[in-house]
Every structure is written in C-alpha cells, then in structure tokens.
C-alpha cells in the first residue's frame, strides 16, 4: 500500500499540566474526507494544528507525504504551503481586499506573476460564489462571505490537504449552509480534508470517515453511518445524543 498522505504516530501534546493530546495515531489516505468530533477541550483543534505544525508536539510524529514535520531538515514553510487551513474566526487579513487576501501568499510564497495570481483568485471567488466581492474588505463582508474568502485563500496555494477547524461555528445559522456547500463541493472534487465540525449534515454528505475524540484520545474511528446507527462506546453515545438534539 502507498504511503498515506497524513500519518500520525503516537502524538502527545502537553500545555504545561494540560494533556491536550495523549497518544494519537492516525492515517489519512489521499482524497479521504475525515470529520473529527468530540466535546470541548478534547484536543480536536490541537490535533489539527499539529498537522501543520502550528503547535509543536510534545512527543510523537506527524508525517505529511512521508515527510516528518519534526525533522530538523524539514522546511516547514514549504510543507505548510501544501496544507491549507481554515479557522473558526476566519482570520482574514483586514487591511487587504478579498482579492489581495487570496493573492498575497501566491505572490510571496509561490512567486506567481500578477496576472496568474489574480486569475486564480477570481476563479476561486467564482467557485465559492462571491465573484462580485473581489474588491471588498473583510469588514464589509458577512461572516459567511468572509469564511468563503478564507477557503479561497487557502485553496489558492493548491494545497494537497485542507484542514478545517470549526469553520461554521462562528456563523449565523443562515450562513452555515453557504459555507458547507463550498466544503461539500471541495470534498467531491477529491481533496483530502480533515474537518473539525459538528455539522452532521456535512458529515453525512461528504465524510468517508468519522473520528470521535475525548480527553486527548481517539475513542472511535468509523464511518458516519456506523457512528449514528451503532456507536461502539458509551461516551460517543452520550455525546451524540447531546449534539443531535
């Protein structure tokens, strides 16, 4: 079998006394869409942030396309350019327009010429459904529009992996759908995705795999269908009964 695109071995992350991750091992195949759920503080964000090394693990390894992110000789900036990340709070650059948000890293990281990067940006804005907002500043956009620009910004790097950390939980209900549609569309296109989200509609529509985390560990690793119909663990059952109503 070929090397999985993400391979995590025995990952630990402590914040002082707090044990955010306690021995996570996980392999994600290229093209797979993984949804991660779990109660608050279970380590979902920390796991995601270890995958692009925004957090430095206390122990264990993360391999992306076989490259150990912990290794000294690894160029972490180069690796991150291949891993898009979408944040709960969007984190758009407020001093730049939507178009500039999407072209900035293409310019300084990918060194693409102006025409190319603007063409890429406009195509992506089209794809996320807001081509008319190219010249708007983040402050002039709704939350849903901002998050779609943020997705476009990440996609502009042509990443091989996309990480989503609760991309819809800062949004008003009527805007969640527009973001989820973009994500479902992306999943269908064959992107490798790891998504922390409690949107079960998305999980059912797009996820190949569902991971339930609790207290820094993976408690259940299954498919969306199986998790609902037949959760193996009592705590999964409890958690599901909470988020489903």
């Amino acid at each position, binding site marked *: 079998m070929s090397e999985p695109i993400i391979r995590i071995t025995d990952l630990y992350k402590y914040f002082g006394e707090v044990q955010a991750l306690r021995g996570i091992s996980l392999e994600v195949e290229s093209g797979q869409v993984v949804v991660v759920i779990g109660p608050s503080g279970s380590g979902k964000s920390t796991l995601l942030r270890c995958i*692009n090394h*925004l957090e430095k693990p206390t122990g264990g390894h993360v391999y992306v396309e076989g490259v150990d992110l912990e290794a000294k000789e690894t160029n972490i*900036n*180069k690796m*991150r*350019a*291949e*891993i*898009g*990340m979408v*944040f709960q*709070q969007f*984190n*758009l*650059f*407020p*001093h730049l327009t939507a178009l500039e948000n999407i072209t*900035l*890293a293409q310019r*300084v*990281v990918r060194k693409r010429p102006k025409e190319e990067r603007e063409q890429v940006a406009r195509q992506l804005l089209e794809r996320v459904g807001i081509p008319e907002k190219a010249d708007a500043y983040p402050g002039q956009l709704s939350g849903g529009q901002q998050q779609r620009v*943020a997705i476009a*910004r*990440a996609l502009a*790097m042509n990443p091989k992996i996309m990480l989503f950390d609760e991309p819809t939980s800062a949004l008003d209900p009527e805007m969640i759908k527009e973001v989820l549609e973009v994500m479902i569309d992306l999943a269908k296109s064959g992107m490798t995705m790891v998504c922390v989200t409690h949107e079960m509609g998305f999980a059912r529509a797009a996820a190949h795999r569902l991971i339930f985390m609790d207290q820094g560990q993976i408690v259940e690793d299954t498919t969306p269908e199986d998790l609902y119909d037949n959760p193996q663990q009592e705590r999964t059952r409890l958690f599901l009964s909470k988020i489903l109503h």
Partner: protein
Amino acid sequence: MTEAEGGSTTTIKARRSFGEQMREFPWWAVIIITFLIGAFIYMISDPSYRNALSFIAFPPTKTEIAFGIDVRNGLMMTLYTTVIAYLIALILGLVLGIMRVSRNPILYHLSTLYVELMRGVPMLVLIIWIGFVVVPFLRNATGNQSITGLQGALIGLGFGYAAYLAEVYRSGIESIPKGQMEAARSLGMGYGQAMQHVILPQAIRRVVPPLSNDLVAMLKDSALVSVVAVPEILQMARLYVSRTFRAFEGYNSAAFLYLVLTLLFIIIVRMIERRWRSSV
C-alpha cells in the same frame, strides 16, 4: 438638503441641550487662536518684541552663531531638529520594536537592554552626555573635527525617542490577534514575510495616533538641544536675552513661537490621523 432631512436634523439638534452644544464646540481652540493673533498683533507693533522675534526667526548676522551648522534660523532649526530626530526615532524605533517581539533571545535582550537604558536616563541628561562626552570623545578618537554639536543633538534626541517609539510599535504589534500570524504562517509564509505583509501593515496603522502624538512631544523636547548650543528657538531667545537683557520679550517670543508651531503640528497630525482612520 431636502425638507425632510432638514427637519429631522433640526429635531435631533433640538434635543441636545445648550450645554452639550457648547461642550462640543472647540472653544479652547478659539481662545488660543484669538490669544495668539492678539499677541502677534501686539508683538509686531512693539519694536522690542519685533526685535526679539526677528532675532530668533531671522538672525541678523549669520556667522557669529555658527557651530559648524548650516541652518541658522531659529524657527527652521527647531523644525529641522524635530523632523530629523523624529525620522531617526521612527526608523530605529521600528527596528527595536520588531526586535522586542522577536523570539530570538539575543535580539530580544539587546533591544530590551537598549529600551530600558534609554528610558532610564532623562532626555536632558542624555543630550548633555552625548554633546559633552560622546561628541568630544569621537572628535579626539577619530581626529575628525567636523562632527558637530548638532549631529550629537540629533542623535541624542533621536536615539532617546527611539526607545519610547519602540514600545509604541511593540504594543501595536502585540495588539494584532494571534490568528493573523497563524493564518499567514499556515499559508507557508515565513515569520519575516508574515511580519512584513500581514502584521506590520496592521500594527503601524494602529500606532499612527500615538506616534503622531510623539511628533508633537518631540517638537517641544527639541528645546532641550539648546543646552548643547544648537541655535533653535530657545537658544536664540537665550542669546537675545543675554545680549539685550530683555528677558521678557525674548522668552515671551520663544513661548509664542513654540505655541504656534505646536498648534500647527497638532492640526497636521489630526489631519493625518483622520486620513488613516478613513482608510482602514
């Protein structure tokens, strides 16, 4: 304006009390400006004030007060000192501010040492020390007599202010949410690239108001360089007084000129701030 709009604004206005309206009107500016205009008219009609003012702003003989200094007009000298020292502080302060948030221990401790040292010494002492210790020392050590008192004064003022501006920049950088750096890094930008393209443009916008307040403060502190005989407004006034024994006219004129300049600077600074605010 249409009838309806006019109507609604008047009703809104009518709800504000007379006291509130008076509170909002810039009476203080009216008073200062009236006073300055009055003072100016009085001064130019009085020959001894006229003498004092023209001595400070347009000294009669240019050579006698030259300390290897080209600009010999007190007003211009104050403006020149302020602008040059401020530019030095602006640039050096930025470098120091960036070093202050650096994770590199050497850069961090060096910049912190500098900032604490500079802020630990009164500006006046710093200027005197550079003027009477460093400059003569450099002249002797290098054998270069062309190092001027003015250069020393500019360095003292600029390097001293840089420590304060560094802290302004630092707090500006730290006020940018962590998510900005993380978003930039997650796109593959290096720390320096993220700083340059994402953090600093936002941080600098935020510190424009405190930085421009420091420009006004610098204008006033430029009077300190009179202790090393830089012929700016205060020094020219002192020369005038020592020559004519007319302390009243000499120092009143100096105070008048500083007040005019300060007000002018405040107006310019407010305009710059408004421009910045509307652009963010």
